[in-house]
């Protein structure tokens, strides 16, 4: 496992840790952007160029901006008076640690059955396009419908109500 993998994983994990630990919400969102970038680089390390660039375009270019807008629209950048961690934070931490230990144990147990070296897959964008309108055309259409429904739904949910509740 190369030096690049260690460096990029460290960047992704550091970004993720900062995103859940920092007090200032906007700093959390920016640390999340760093985690997304680290993940995109991990995808590129795995020879999945299309997925890596799509990750940057969608997550950093859209989802991170969306999160930041939501923080600013809900006054999240002011420090709350009760602290930033909820009352039962210890239980949450314990559950997360338990999940990680189970997953890590499963991976390390089966590490000897996993393939060590495989040939680099040569995937062109043309193949992805062929797959999307060939074998995966039904998921493509369903995702299109889902995105339309999500767009309309998000607009309706967040719209100002006429009169109604203040």
């Amino acid at each position, binding site marked *: *496992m190369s030096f690049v993998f260690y460096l990029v994983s460290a960047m992704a*994990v550091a970004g*993720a*840790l900062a*995103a*859940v630990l920092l007090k200032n*919400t906007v700093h*959390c969102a920016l640390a999340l952007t760093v*985690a997304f970038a680290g*993940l995109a680089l*991990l995808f590129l390390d*795995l*020879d*999945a160029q*299309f*997925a890596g660039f*799509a*990750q940057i375009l*969608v*997550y950093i270019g*859209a*989802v991170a901006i*969306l*999160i930041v*807008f*939501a923080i600013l*629209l809900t006054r*999240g950048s002011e420090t*709350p008076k*009760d602290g930033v*961690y*909820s009352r039962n*934070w210890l*239980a*949450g*931490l314990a559950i*997360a640690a338990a*999940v*990680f230990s189970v*997953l*890590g144990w499963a*991976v*390390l147990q089966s590490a000897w059955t*996993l*393939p*060590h070296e*495989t040939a680099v897959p040569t*995937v062109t964008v043309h193949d*992805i396009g062929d797959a*999307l309108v060939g074998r*995966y055309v039904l998921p493509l259409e369903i*995702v299109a419908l*889902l*995105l339309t429904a*999500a*767009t309309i*739904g998000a*607009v309706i*949910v*967040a719209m100002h109500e006429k009169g109604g509740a203040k």
Partner: protein
Amino acid sequence: MTPLAGFLLVAALLFAIGLAGALTRRNAILVLIGIELMLNAANLNLIAFWRYSPHPEALTGMMFAIFSIAVAAAEAAVGLGLVISIHRHAHTTDLDQMNRMKG
């Protein structure tokens, strides 16, 4: 430890961090940040298994990950719309204070 095991461990770690964030923070938006991290960790798992699979030309893992990215973006939009709408109603995004069903 094989390269695949390394990627899977990183994905598990990111998933656990996202889960911890979603369970321990008060602000609803930070819970959504944790959820996005969990989805990203699952994507990393998918791509890692695709890369080291016996038939990567079938593109199954890559397609799954791309659809997952699209669906996660849609879900983030709807979730954040909900958070904004709740803030407009309750004037707070603190989840510990939303402990009653009556609005």
